């Protein structure tokens, strides 16, 4: 009886020690799930989800505070990927899905107030006080954060048109009339 207890106790101690060691040795810094979620998010940093950037939204999803369908730039595709990753139900997007856009400053109207420069989360607007501003288009994520602060309403969002650089082969479609 005592031997049995001793063996069980010894086993518990050894295993406990091993587990304790492993928890220190293989400790994971930060939440790996947040990083995985963040990799799916489009990094527009637009705040349309109600969180100040993609990382806070990822953290909120990971903590179970936020739903997965709050990111309009990510679109339904993003929702599907998040649902896949987290094993949740696919839900329709909260907001309307928009085509990719880019901000354009009407340089004639711009008064050089620098408010949009301060609003831009990715430093994609260049200019100085009382100097004309302009958007560096390849860096613009289309987050629309610069549109509201502009006191003279000179910033417009333009959808990105298809061109030879971003053109894609289409999914082969079977013409029903021909097939019938």
């Amino acid at each position, binding site marked *: 009886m005592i031997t049995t207890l001793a063996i069980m106790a010894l086993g518990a101690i050894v295993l406990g020690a091993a587990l304790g060691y492993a928890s220190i040795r293989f400790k994971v810094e930060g939440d790996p799930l947040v990083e995985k979620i963040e990799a799916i998010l489009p990094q527009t*940093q637009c705040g349309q989800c109600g969180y100040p950037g993609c990382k806070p939204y990822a953290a909120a999803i990971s903590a179970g505070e936020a739903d997965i369908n709050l990111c309009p730039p990510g679109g339904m595709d993003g929702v599907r990927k998040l649902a896949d990753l987290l094993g949740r139900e696919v839900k329709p997007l909260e907001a309307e899905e928009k085509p990719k856009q880019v901000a354009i400053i009407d340089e004639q109207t711009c008064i050089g107030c620098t408010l949009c420069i301060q609003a831009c989360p990715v430093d994609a607007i260049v200019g100085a006080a009382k100097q004309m501003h302009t958007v560096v288009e390849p860096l613009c994520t289309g987050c629309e954060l610069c549109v509201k602060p502009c006191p003279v309403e000179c910033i417009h969002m333009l959808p990105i048109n298809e061109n030879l650089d971003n053109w894609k082969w289409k999914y082969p479609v079977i013409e029903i009339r021909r097939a019938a």
Partner: protein
Amino acid sequence: MLQRLFGFKGGVKPQTHKAPSVQEPIAQAPLPARLYVPLHQSIGGAPTPRVEAGEDVLKGQLIGGADGWVSAAVHAPTSGRVVAIVDHVAAHPSGLPTLSVVIEPDGRDEWIARTPLDHRSLPPERVRELLRDAGVVGLGGAAFPSHAKLTAARSVPMEDLVINGAECEPYMTCDDMLMRERAEEIVRGIAIFRDLLGARRVLIGIEDNKPEAVAAMQAAVCGLAEDYEVVAVPTRYPAGGAKQLIRVLTGKEVPASKRSTELAVQCFNVATVYTAYRALAHGEPVVSRIVTLTGNVERPRNWEVRLGTPLGDLVALGRPKADTSRYLMGGPMMGFALPSLEAPVVKATNCIIAAAPTTFPASPPEMPCIRCGACAEVCPHELQPFELYWFARARNFGKTQEYYLFDCIECGCCSYVCPSHIPLVQYFRFAKSEIWAREREKNAADAAKARFELRNAREEREKAEKAERLARTAAARPAEKKPAPASAETVAGQPAAVPVDAAPAAPAVDAEAVKKATIVAAMERARAQREAAQPRNTEQLSREQQQEIAAIEARRARVAGDPPGTRTTRPGSAPPPAETGDS
């Protein structure tokens, strides 16, 4: 000349249809009314325009300068005036516009000054630069800048140079006719490439259904006393694929992850070699190319066409038959239907096929895959197209990459043999461009994230720096304050006290020191006042202070009509009671 030939797996033997377009020699296409020369005709960076609208240009004049190393220059195909630099429809399956230089020919076709050069007298780097600035690109259809392929791998000395004259695609005969008519120039051109690469052996691969071309090339090689081997390779599509021809001629299989230079082989098309020779030995940049016009036309033949010639003008030369429904660019296996005949001839335009419903019937409806494996049998890259199709169709792009989607050369053999008429290549193209688009998006997102984090870090740092600055000045103030009143008292109160220190110095310095000291004292006083005034508007005011404030308010009300006056009295009035009394 006995050469052991190797085989490649798979391939098909479609009807060649080459005979109609080789009946007549290559003809010069007439000057069109307008030329639309796209600036971006090769893989790599888009050239930057070097001319302006309204400028007169000569034939061969640079109109687009190469942008970076992997890019090739573009030249005016004839003399005339640049009418505009505008977006014009491209020779591309999408029919989207691309920036093009519109030239109105003056009819003189006057060349710019040409300087013939001998590549042997120039350093290799200079030759590569010259080729880039002459716009020499792969004319087999890929339009990859040739100079970028002309550097041997540092670790492996180049062994074989493969010259590709296989021309396996049905209908196409432009390389065949070029070899028949201009073999000598091709053979002379090979020397440029051989010397640049330092290749030990040169193999010219030509499919054995072109005996005239083989004979012409052999004659040219003998005539110039070169040791190149002209090899007739078995006719089997796609023997003209670079990797297939390398395999057939050298037995080397280029893996997906490696370039052929790492295996000491490099491959060039015959037309590319020809243009490289013209560029160096005649100083003529690439301004035209040979295009096969065939199919449903009354007069199929090869034309030497200026780049930028609208395809409509070219097609009219062949007099297309009435039932022609569409036009294909490239061959029937790998080509695409042209969305518009307004698109111009570019460096990649090797063949235009007029298609009629009788010769190119619409593909029958797609049926379900029966997993017969016919596609896997013919795939020259030994892929499993049926698996790829399954995953591409389900948009499971990760899986398509696991099945080596990017090894697919889109040769079309699988679609050709599929008994269910599945357009397999279309699925693969769709999957590839979708993967590329996602990669672009991912890179853009990563860049945006990096910029966002950088910006946050910068803001944080600026905030910390500001706080630190404030803390430092706050800490410095009390320390300054103690000695300050003392000096202020001594200097302001008894100016005589200063000369005591300054006495040994000259009187001039003395006066200046006094002045300086007075200024310092005044500044200190002002600061002391400011500081004393700062914590004023709080609670815990003594009765005396409250009285003072009341007095000030009363005075303010009195002099309400004179705001500047009020403003001047206010700062001094608050803290020291003595001064309040003064005003």
